[in-house]
């Protein structure tokens, strides 16, 4: 996994901090007249999106372009993939085009892992099925760090994640990454929407949102799909909203300093009330901006250095003290 970013759970604490610190520096670029760095000039980044997602795709596109990389967007609709070309054949086409990195979003868990076995380039998971969405978790951690004024990790920060955990790759990545950074995570959902074995996850579970609110520094709302209602996960949107929605009353139960997050897109009025989404506590808009900085950091750290496989430097020297390379599962090349 050290040439790719497939899963937040594979990151060491040092690697996660390196990404966040790098994103910090890159975020300053947004104040500049020229928001461009030459670092990835001549490299090609392909956005391979099998699922519709304008928001994430644009974020990765902006990140790659700000590093002067060439970007190719490959979305499923109207492409050969829609006509039945397999993932593998698509991968081989990209390989032939010389993609240095492929950012892939797919509705099948594990698709990025398979892709990584078929191409030489670096693979960034932009969301695979119900499995993970590592850059989302990274930008969420980045946002928390900034808003709560933390310099390094998130030790002791109490994060509550509310919603459809069972089907949520954002939840999985966040539970893993927040835990790596030292935060204390609590999941709140109806029992039908947590995995059977969630007891083995590094977090607490609660079915009672009101009880958890006063003890939360961060509350992260997940989108709830209406289709879940027909599969009997909950009886009605109204009941879900009443028991698990964040309305202004519940927002008032949060501590003063607490922030409200949402990965988007939101169902206003279902999991989150409009007034809450628009309140000063809400980080929803800045999460988007932070996404570009974090994705720039990821692309830089994956592509900006030596490529051990066939690259110039084969000696794999350790990095400096600022980023420990001890963990063999760390994201960046040695």
């Amino acid at each position: 996994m050290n040439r790719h970013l497939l899963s937040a759970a594979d990151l060491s604490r040092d690697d996660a901090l390196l990404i966040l610190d790098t994103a910090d520096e890159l975020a300053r670029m947004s104040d500049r007249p020229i928001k461009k760095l030459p670092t990835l000039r001549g490299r090609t980044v392909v956005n391979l999106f099998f699922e519709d997602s304008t928001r994430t795709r644009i974020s990765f596109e902006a990140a790659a372009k700000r590093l002067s990389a060439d970007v190719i967007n490959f979305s499923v609709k109207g492409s050969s993939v829609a006509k039945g070309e397999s993932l593998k054949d698509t991968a081989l086409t990209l390989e032939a085009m010389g993609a240095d990195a492929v950012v892939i979003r797919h509705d099948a868990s594990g698709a990025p892992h398979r892709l990584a076995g078929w191409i030489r380039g670096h693979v960034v998971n932009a969301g695979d099925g119900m499995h993970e969405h590592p850059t989302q978790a990274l930008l969420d951690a980045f946002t928390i760090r900034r808003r709560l004024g933390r310099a390094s990790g998130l030790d002791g920060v109490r994060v509550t994640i509310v919603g459809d955990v069972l089907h949520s790759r954002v939840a999985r990545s966040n539970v893993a990454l927040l835990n790596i950074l030292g935060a204390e995570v609590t999941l709140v959902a109806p029992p039908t929407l947590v995995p059977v074995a969630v007891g083995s996850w590094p977090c607490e579970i609660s079915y009672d949102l009101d009880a958890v609110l006063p003890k939360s520094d961060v509350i992260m709302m997940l989108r709830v799909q209406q289709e879940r209602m027909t599969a009997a996960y909950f009886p009605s949107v109204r009941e879900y909203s009443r028991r698990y929605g964040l309305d202004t009353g519940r927002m008032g139960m949060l501590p003063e300093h607490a922030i409200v997050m949402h990965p988007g897109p939101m169902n206003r009025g279902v999991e989150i009330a409009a007034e809450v989404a628009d309140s000063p506590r809400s980080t929803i808009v800045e999460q988007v901006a932070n996404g570009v900085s974090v994705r720039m950091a990821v692309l830089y750290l994956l592509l900006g250095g030596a490529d051990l496989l066939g690259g110039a430097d084969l000696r794999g020297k350790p990095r400096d003290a600022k980023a420990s390379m001890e963990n063999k599962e760390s994201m960046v090349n040695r």
Partner: protein
Amino acid sequence: MMRARSAGDGRSGPDARSAGRSGDRQPGGSAPGRDSNVGHDDGSGGSPPPSDQAAAGSQKRVLEPAEIRRALTRIAHEILERTNGADDVLLLGIPTRGVPLARRLADRAAEFEDRTVPWGSLDVTMYRDDLRLRPARALGRTELPPAGIDGKTVVIVDDVLYSGRTVRAALDALNDLGRPRAVQLAVLVDRGHRELPIRADYVGKNLPTSQREMVRVLLSETDGEDAVLLGERKEAQV
């Protein structure tokens, strides 16, 4: 491990250097991570970070704290002289050690002229031409004063000038940040072996070296003491 040198002319002639090297087998080789870092003793100037102090082969001190102090004082005066009293001057240090040097110069200039001289830091990692030779490096801090660099005389400050590639990267970085009226370069040590047509405007000490040698600058802000060390490089560098 290090020979005490008498203070005085800080210039190291050939005799002094060979005396330092010959017959001196030091325990321990070079630390593995010595050269792969934010510092730049890899042909592009700068010196390794604090963690690699134990490294080295034989080293000797070629500049003592007092000499460094005097050199910086002189540079500060020179800057004031050539920029008409630091009118519209901005000192930008290249991380890591260029930054404390920039701050010291700014403090000194401020003393002499009784006005504040703005200073900041300019990280050039993203503009380097040798990024692909090593694993991706962590970024240093870039911090400019609110007024920016447009129309200013920017003095880039670094600890060691070697191949000139770091400075070229700094010029590219400045180009994306704005349009200075002029750009000058101040370095504590110029060790020769330029690979690009770049020269320093202000030099603390000229230190002729061979490519087989390594120059290390220590500063109290980062390393606990002030010194410039010259030692033999243990492995050839790409």
